[in-house]
């Protein structure tokens, strides 16, 4: 069953709608003041297209997961695979990070620390924030950044 999820930005005008068949197959549309981005995740391939740009395909390669800038959906991937909503140690990942609107693929270190109460302390180079999830592992609140509204 396809799940539809909707987030809005808390710090800047932006929104994203995601239709997820699973955590491996999903597509979404992200809208900011100056861009509109469509993406489709199909296993180890992430296809992206800005409304005024070329299609870009990013391969996962040897990274653990994709992470698309401003997309809360991708925070679910390590949380689901490694059951991070259950008590346990912090985990570190090598992510294939895709900045928006550049759509380049960068290898990025990230750390997910379970805090309990379905909350993760997320940390990347130079940044840290707490992320809350629902019982299905989807983000409900990314501290001061994104909030799920549907």
């Amino acid at each position, binding site marked *: 069953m396809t799940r539809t999820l909707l987030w809005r930005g808390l710090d800047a005008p932006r929104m994203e709608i995601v239709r997820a068949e699973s955590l491996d197959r999903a597509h979404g549309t992200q809208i900011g003041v100056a861009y509109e981005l469509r993406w489709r995740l199909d296993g180890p391939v992430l296809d992206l297209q800005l409304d005024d740009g070329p299609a870009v395909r990013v391969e996962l390669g040897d990274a653990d997961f994709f992470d698309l*800038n401003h997309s809360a959906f991708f925070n679910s991937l390590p949380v689901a695979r490694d059951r991070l909503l259950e008590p346990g140690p912090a985990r570190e990942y090598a992510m294939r990070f895709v900045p928006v609107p550049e759509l380049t693929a960068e290898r990025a270190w990230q750390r997910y620390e379970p805090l309990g109460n379905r909350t993760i302390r997320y940390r990347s180079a*130079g940044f840290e*924030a707490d992320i809350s999830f629902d019982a299905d592992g989807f983000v409900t609140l990314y501290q001061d*950044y994104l909030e799920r509204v549907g």
Partner: protein
Amino acid sequence: MTQRMRIVPMTPAYARDIVTWCYDPPYDCYDMTAADPAYLAEPATGFFALLDQDELIGFRSFGPDGQVPGGRYDASALDTGGGLRSDLTGKGLGREAIGTGLEFGRHRFAPAAFRVTIASFNLRAQRVVESLGFRAVDSFLALAGGQSYEMLVRPELRPAPPPGGGT
């Protein structure tokens, strides 16, 4: 992999701490005592806390709060500002603090350029931002008080998306 300084969301507790910060003259124009902590902690105002390990050492801002009335501002750049805790100024932390904020702001807001506005007497801060790639584009007198300010801009060079086949 660790980085000493990091940006974190502004909490009410951090904001209440920041509004107690006072600086020795002539830097007392940067005192935060007139700021409303509720305003600083509101996500849409663009304020973030800067930590070293788990200690609050400063803040960074992104957006109109970095503008000084009297300057000629346009939408071509994202204004950024901030400050270090008053007991930490003059210790060589400014470049890493500002650099950490710029790296965060580049990913979060993807601006075409960053812009800073610095009091003309504050040569120390001007040297720091120039070392990070900012160049002076204008100077002006503030509407309130007539203080002279310098405006500096750093264009962000975005790599073009790869054609078709991706990365």
